């Protein structure tokens, strides 16, 4: 399997862990699963944990930006954590860090959404 997505909710934060390769093909699945989760009314914030993401191209940037818009519209906060260097480079290039805060680990990323982890 090219991408495995694991979602869990802690309080009003949805944490999505991505494992594998995020490209145009696998992006559709990520989008669908996260969108469905965001439909639950008790979810306000989103944390993307990319620790195990081995590959990402600009289709991944698209999914991330798409979720950022949705979460922000809902009045929530979105953060990202454990980004591998090659993926960080692409994010840097796109200016993603101007709008999205990056953290070293998941618990800091969750805390930054305004909830104690």
């Amino acid at each position: 399997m090219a991408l495995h997505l694991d979602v869990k909710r802690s309080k009003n934060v949805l944490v999505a862990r991505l494992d594998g390769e995020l490209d145009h093909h696998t992006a559709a699945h990520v989008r669908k699963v996260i969108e469905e989760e965001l439909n639950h009314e008790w979810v306000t914030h989103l944390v993307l944990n990319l620790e195990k993401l081995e590959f990402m191209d600009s289709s991944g940037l698209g999914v991330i930006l798409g979720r950022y818009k949705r979460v922000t519209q809902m009045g929530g906060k979105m953060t990202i954590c454990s980004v591998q260097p090659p993926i960080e480079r692409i994010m840097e290039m796109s200016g993603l860090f101007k709008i999205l805060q990056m953290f070293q680990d998941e618990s800091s990323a969750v805390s930054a959404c305004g909830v104690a982890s």
Partner: protein
Amino acid sequence: MKPVHTNFMELCFNARSENESFARVAVAAFLSQLDPTIEDLTDIKTVVSEAVTNSVIHGYEENPEGVILIRTEIEGTKICVQITDYGLGIEDVTEARQPLYTSKPELERSGMGFTIMENFMDEVMIHSKLGEGTTIQLVKQLTPQSQQSLVN
């Protein structure tokens, strides 16, 4: 003087999204004979993924009948990857190259494909004709490894 090592491969497949990962792995596997650095290999996988995805989404608008061609050439430590589709073509290449420009924002495209190609490769040439298709030519001089292995 040792003659320059040359080699090529050509690849042809349908414009299906499941072939995106196949395409980048195949190109990387071909280039592994040069014993490239992990960084170079990741860069090349990424740009191949960008160009093939563009052919699938923009060139053929996800019509899986479309055919995509990849030609990879090795000349010493210089590599050249050419990705061709016979799809819609690009109307304004200068506009297409702009960072964040995308003609398909409704599909959550980031408009960063060409910018990434330009950042990761030494040369990016775009040949496109409306209604005839697009060829992207990518050239990169690989970083020499500190030590080349005997057998690879």
